[in-house]
């Protein structure tokens, strides 16, 4: 570890080892992602600057005070999170900039266990009295809920231990996206939009950059104190071609994913160079042939497959869904606790890994929101279910002694609960390229990008569309198609997986909008994958009215 990094990772006890093993583990599957850049930038200065500029650190005493007040009030566990969320949106439509939006939200969330129940309170005004009152309110709430659990004869909340850690972690970055003036971002977007608009047949272009900075200080009654700064950025480029005479239109989204990164990621994406191509795709899609429905071979690009992984593997392996706790809104799972180690959900080629240490992953952290170090573990190995996503509250439900570190609350006022880590499909050992998959396909469709999707509440029956669709005949891409969606159920789909691209084809996709919980909260998460080949029921979504 370079000394300048060590300077910012003043880590106590086991935290250090967990962090290091996280790094080591993330490098374990050889060649599973992009080759490293030739010149690795030094991020340590940026991390130092980010921490030094953070207004959150100076309020650490407020978080300590909240935890102390909760423990004094009878809590058996307490954690306090000071969170400063900053969100910026710069967008353009054709040659016009949209109003810039910057949202800041800062406050304290205090979560407690008392009398075996959960309680939580969140405030923005951080006077000593308000902090103490909030801690007491959280304890009152926890006691009422603990008493109800007892009266109902239900098990009380019991947390598995987590090693104590005092440390900091900052998203590796060169440039804080909030240091780049909105007008500079808008100018770049206007140029991108102009290039797309210049394509004959293009009617509308929408482009934007989103940036989120999450500055978080966690203090737990175990003694952990963790200050982390996460930077997340996302590009958007949507080009629409309209055929006014025939009354039709087609839209095409750029496929560049959101990323845990600084401004340099957006700067270096090359959207300027891609813009005209995206415009051409939109026009081509408008005039593409409508798909013939039927059971077909589909070759799914990483830009399409990541969302299918999210919905069909990410969600059903959330333990709270499995236990019925999310039944009222997000839903349950087709998986049951006893399926672990037993249930086959894919072909033997299928290996899916949960990983909160993955570089660039939107759910990558140093520690989760209850102080558990980031880790990497298997969810599906050789096609079989072998792991769950858990928190400290949930580990005991399945007889485990440690949490998988999946606790997250959005902002200071979202109650932390189990949220999805980065879940990724591992590359195949054969080293196939995308071309290999296409060449090996007699009759099928190559699908790229994220389109409309829908999946049932047990994460079983699903339907996904995409951005571009190419007919494959005798191993060649023959013509563009439109109105394509593929329908399947999770097990049939993953069981039909018969080819997976090699390490060189592995890409990340991701979203800021992983929704779950009541009240609703958004989580940011990435999914890596190579292209892969499946069999699915392809339907035509064009309808018959027109």
């Amino acid at each position: 570890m370079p000394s300048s990094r060590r300077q910012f990772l003043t880590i106590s006890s086991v935290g250090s080892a967990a962090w290091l093993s996280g790094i080591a583990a993330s490098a374990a599957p050889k060649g599973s992602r992009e080759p490293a850049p030739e010149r690795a930038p030094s991020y340590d200065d940026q991390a130092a600057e980010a921490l030094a500029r953070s207004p959150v650190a100076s309020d650490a005493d407020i978080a300590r005070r909240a935890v102390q007040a909760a423990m004094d009030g009878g809590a058996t566990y307490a954690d306090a999170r000071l969170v400063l969320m900053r969100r910026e949106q710069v967008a353009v439509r054709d040659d016009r900039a949209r109003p810039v939006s910057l949202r800041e939200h800062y406050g304290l969330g205090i979560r407690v266990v008392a009398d075996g129940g959960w309680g939580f309170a969140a405030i923005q005004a951080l006077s000593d009295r308000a902090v103490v009152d909030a801690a007491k309110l959280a304890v009152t709430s926890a006691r009422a809920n603990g008493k109800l659990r007892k009266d109902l004869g239900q098990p009380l909340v019991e947390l598995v231990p987590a090693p104590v850690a005092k440390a900091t972690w900052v998203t590796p970055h060169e440039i804080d996206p909030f240091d780049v003036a909105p007008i500079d971002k808008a100018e770049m977007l206007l140029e991108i939009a102009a290039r797309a608009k210049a394509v004959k047949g293009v009617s509308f272009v929408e482009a934007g950059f989103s940036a989120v900075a999450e500055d978080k200080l966690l203090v737990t009654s175990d003694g952990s104190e963790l200050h982390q700064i996460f930077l997340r950025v996302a590009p958007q480029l949507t080009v629409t071609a309209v055929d006014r005479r025939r009354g039709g239109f087609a839209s095409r989204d750029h496929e560049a994913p959101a990323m845990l990164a600084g401004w340099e990621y957006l700067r270096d994406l090359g959207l300027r160079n891609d813009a005209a191509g995206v415009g051409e795709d939109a026009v081509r899609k408008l005039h593409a042939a409508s798909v013939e429905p039927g059971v077909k071979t589909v070759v799914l690009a990483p830009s399409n497959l990541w969302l299918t992984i999210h919905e069909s593997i990410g969600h059903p392996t959330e333990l709270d869904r499995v236990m019925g706790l999310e039944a009222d809104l997000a839903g349950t799972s087709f998986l049951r606790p006893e399926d672990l180690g037993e249930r086959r959900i894919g072909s033997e080629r299928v290996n899916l890994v949960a990983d909160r240490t993955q570089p660039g992953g939107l759910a990558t952290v140093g520690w989760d929101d209850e102080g558990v170090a980031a880790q990497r573990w298997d969810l599906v190995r050789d096609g079989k279910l072998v792991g769950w996503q858990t928190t400290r509250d949930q580990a005991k439900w399945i007889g485990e002694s440690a949490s998988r570190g999946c606790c997250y609350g959005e902002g200071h006022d979202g109650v932390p609960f189990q949220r999805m880590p980065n879940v990724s499909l591992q590359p195949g050992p054969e080293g196939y390229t995308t071309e290999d998959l296409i060449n090996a396909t007699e009759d099928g469709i190559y699908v790229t990008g994220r389109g409309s999707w829908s999946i049932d509440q047990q994460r079983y029956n699903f339907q996904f569309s995409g951005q571009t669709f190419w007919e494959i005949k005798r191993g060649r891409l023959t013509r563009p198609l439109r109105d394509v969606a593929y329908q399947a159920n999770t097990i049939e789909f993953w069981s039909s997986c018969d080819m997976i691209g090699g390490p060189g084809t592995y890409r990340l996709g991701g979203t800021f909008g992983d929704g779950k919980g009541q009240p609703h909260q958004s989580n940011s998460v990435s999914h890596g994958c190579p292209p892969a080949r499946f069999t699915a029921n392809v339907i035509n979504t064009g309808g018959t009215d027109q």
Partner: protein
Amino acid sequence: MTLLRKDAKRLVDKVLAQASVGDLRVQVSASKRGHLRYGAGRPTTSGDVDGVTLAVTASKGRRTATVTGSRTDDAAVAELVRRAEGLAELSPEDPEHMPPLAEASYPKVRAEDKAVTRLDPGARAELVGRAIRRAEADGVAAAGLLEHEQLATAVGNRSGLFAHHACTQVSLSATCRTEDGTGSARAGFVSHALSGLVPEILVSDAAQRAKRSQLPAPRDPGRYPVILAPQAVADLLDVFVGGLDARRADEGRSAFSRKGGGNLVGDALFDSRVELWSDPADPNDPASPFDRGGRPHRKVKWVEGGVLRALHNSRYWADKQGLEDLPMPSSLHMGGGTDDLDALVSGFDRGILISRFWYIRMLDPQQLLVTGLTRDGTFWIDKGKVVEPVRNFRFNDSPLTLLRKVVALGRPQRAGLSTERVTVVPPLVVSEFELSSVSDAV
């Protein structure tokens, strides 16, 4: 925190007093929210969230920026205004920028209930305890959320605009599942007032329907006559409201675009019995009298006698096209008859009863074609009787189908699971609806 009208005015004025540009708008939202979740027979997470957000939108010429913060002290307010103005200067010109709204009048809306403001952790545990015990007695596993909120919103600018609205909302949902995992149903209550909330009634209703939906039989996908419960109608009409956008229609990008240009306002698009309107001042189901920008919501007839009467718009688009200023509505009412769902069923020959929809996503905005799934109780009806539960379906169809192919309309009621927009709609019998594949999920 919550804000009385005079406190909101004082806060808005404090922000405006800091402005150095003439075109500055502030939106305030102050809320006190509490919730308790439950599942697997026990209360789970719970919380009280006290918060305020101040959104300051500053414009210098056509350069606009909005900065949102969460502190109300003098220094923080001054900083917020300074940053909004500074950011506006750094922002690119927005050719669609509109001058500030002038003083406006708003419908009088009574939407506060003292009983809701008094709910606390003890009261939450009591209400949720009653729900859990009822579910236990009925032999089902229940999961859901109790939530209550006291909310005040205000908007003001330097051109004399000031709007204030205070409301309360309480909601309880319950998803009941049978022990074998093959039956499920969901019930919900939402209102500005606490008085109608009886957890036992809500849970019992869901529990009975869950048991009736147990061990569903497979049935082939296809086009079927359907009866949609009010919640299912609400789920689809939510998509419909989003689709009523004037700009997208005028630009040739929506189901309401006229081929060759323009939109379909004035055309008889639907069954002549279809009446759709919004009304923030409805006494039973009040809704916000203005949108986030302070644009007034009035009573608006969107569809009258099956004729499309209006599309909602942005201020820019309304101005450009010479349209009446119509923001997206805060409520939706659909007219109907007097029959309840059971009466509609008994008059129905043969087809499928759908309780609600789930995971609705757009497939083709040009036709307002969406996909999604049925959930929480889908039944086969034959000769006016519920014969058996059937497995859930994925559908590929449009809310427009409902309005075109409606055969019978029942008595409108508040959709208890629609907590975002006030939605009061009837159960509907529809002559055909595309159920495209079977879903095994329960």
